[in-house]
């Protein structure tokens, strides 16, 4: 990305700034529009109207909320562990934001084109657990502690099926680089990994059902990793007030919300890169047909963001459809169902790849 903007602007400062600021702007936009969309989607699904007072169609509702949050007093309880309490929200947000460093928004818009992008993303996103545990422990509150413990148990368990599916995909693709994975599924939707990858042949058709299974597993487990309903037991509103961020208020609380929505987009991005062609357009590029070379990266960014938003929508859709799982049900789903299926899937994809 830096190289691209350096060639475009010819200035080191401007290109560095754009490279650094673009993902942050994306996260903020995802949080702002995500909260708005969440409210609207939930309202529509419950035959309500949703926010419609602030601005056209209530679009400025989240902006107003944000301004309100900025003005809030930073009230803290007496017996908290001050240091950990203050670091925790930053750590959680840093963990979810660091993933954006390797996410390729298009063939040009990628923060860092490292070879182990997928591994890095998985590693850094589990950073969030540490932040959540710190928040829960330092708050000196039973609800917070319970939420943090649940969260740790949940995220650690659900990282296994995620890792197994990612492993299967890495075996099939032979690379860990996210931009290379995206490039391999080029141009049309029948080249996407969910439809067996780019190579045409018997293997492609044999792979389709197992790819679908892999997609379902990774979608469910990433959903659990970002603590969204039906896997939101760490912050279970009706049981634990707000879970691990019960004691937080104002901007520190906003950091947790920001990281939640940032995480949602990040996992959507990972899922769409692994199975749905990443930034590739499903119908070829307008830039190619019209012969305008410079248009292609922007088109790619458009498709990538569209796919990300689509999966965010599916996450919301699930949230407003399903009730919360009990703790034992949550563990059953992970250890008894997802992990065995992921293992079988891993073996079968491995065998088919060898063919």
């Amino acid at each position: 990305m830096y190289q691209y903007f350096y060639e475009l602007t010819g200035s080191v400062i401007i290109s560095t700034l754009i490279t650094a600021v673009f993902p942050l702007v994306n996260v903020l936009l995802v949080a702002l529009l995500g909260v708005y969309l969440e409210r609207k989607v939930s309202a529509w699904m419950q035959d309500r109207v949703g926010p419609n007072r602030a601005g056209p169609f209530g679009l400025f509702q989240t902006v107003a909320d944000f301004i309100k949050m900025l003005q809030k007093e930073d009230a803290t309880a007496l017996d908290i562990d001050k240091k950990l309490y203050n670091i925790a929200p930053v750590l959680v947000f840093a963990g979810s934001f660091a993933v954006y460093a390797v996410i390729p928004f298009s063939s040009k818009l990628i923060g860092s084109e490292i070879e182990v992008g997928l591994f890095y993303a998985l590693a850094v996103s589990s950073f969030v657990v540490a932040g959540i545990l710190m928040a829960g422990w330092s708050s000196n509150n039973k609800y917070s502690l319970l939420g943090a413990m649940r969260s740790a148990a949940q995220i650690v368990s659900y990282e296994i099926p995620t890792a197994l599916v990612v492993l299967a995909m890495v075996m099939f693709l032979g690379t860990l680089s996210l931009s290379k994975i995206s490039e391999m599924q080029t141009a049309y939707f029948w080249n996407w990994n969910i439809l067996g990858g780019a190579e045409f042949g018997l293997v492609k058709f044999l792979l389709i059902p197992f790819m679908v299974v892999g997609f379902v597993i990774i979608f469910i487990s990433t959903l659990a990793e970002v603590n969204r309903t039906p896997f939101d037991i760490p912050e279970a509103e009706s049981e634990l007030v707000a879970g691990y961020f019960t004691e937080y208020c104002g901007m520190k609380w906003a950091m947790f919300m920001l990281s939640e929505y940032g995480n949602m987009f990040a996992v959507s991005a990972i899922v769409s890169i692994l199975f749905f062609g990443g930034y590739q357009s499903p119908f070829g590029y307008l830039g190619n047909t019209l012969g305008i070379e410079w248009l292609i990266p922007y088109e790619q960014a458009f498709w990538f963001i569209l796919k990300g938003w689509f999966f965010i929508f599916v996450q919301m859709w699930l949230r407003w459809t399903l009730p919360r799982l009990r703790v034992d049900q949550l563990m059953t789903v992970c250890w008894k169902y997802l992990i065995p299926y992921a293992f079988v899937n891993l073996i079968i994809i491995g065998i088919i790849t060898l063919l």
Partner: protein
Amino acid sequence: MKEYLKNTWLGIYTVLVGMKITFKHLFTPAVTIQYPEVKLKLPERERNRLYVNIDDCIGCDQCSRACPVSCIDIETVKSIPGEDLGTTSNGKKKAFWVTNFTIDFAKCCYCQLCVFPCPTECIYMTDVFEFSTYERNDLVYQFSNLTKEEAEQKKINFANFQAEKEKQKAAAATAPKTENPSQPNTN
């Protein structure tokens, strides 16, 4: 093993059924009535703010007496001969100046008991139900159409009339006493 596969299938299938239902509702028009802009039709026998058509009021005080919370406050002054107050719309002759007619809606319990005793049907329920104010005193509604000066004037008029009558009575009482003491005073 069979149970296991069945559970898996059931899990996925039921989730999909639920998602289908919520997806349908995504396109169902909202049932919300956006209140300040759109208002529901009120029920047939709704009870809201009272209104008094003071032109028809004969000052009989029956509504005030019917009121269980004493929120209606009426003060009347008899008219003196020569003053014509006119008639109500159903032909009753008015004999009182209604110098004060207040209803305190902070106290009113909207029971409608004051509406029925009214002989001229001048107190009735309107369809206004949004009249919240910042000051409690603003909820005391004055229905008398006389100004304060006019009301004072009427009181003075009546007092003067009464005093004159008393004087006449006294004069009449003292005058015949000397002439005809055996007869009782029939006045």
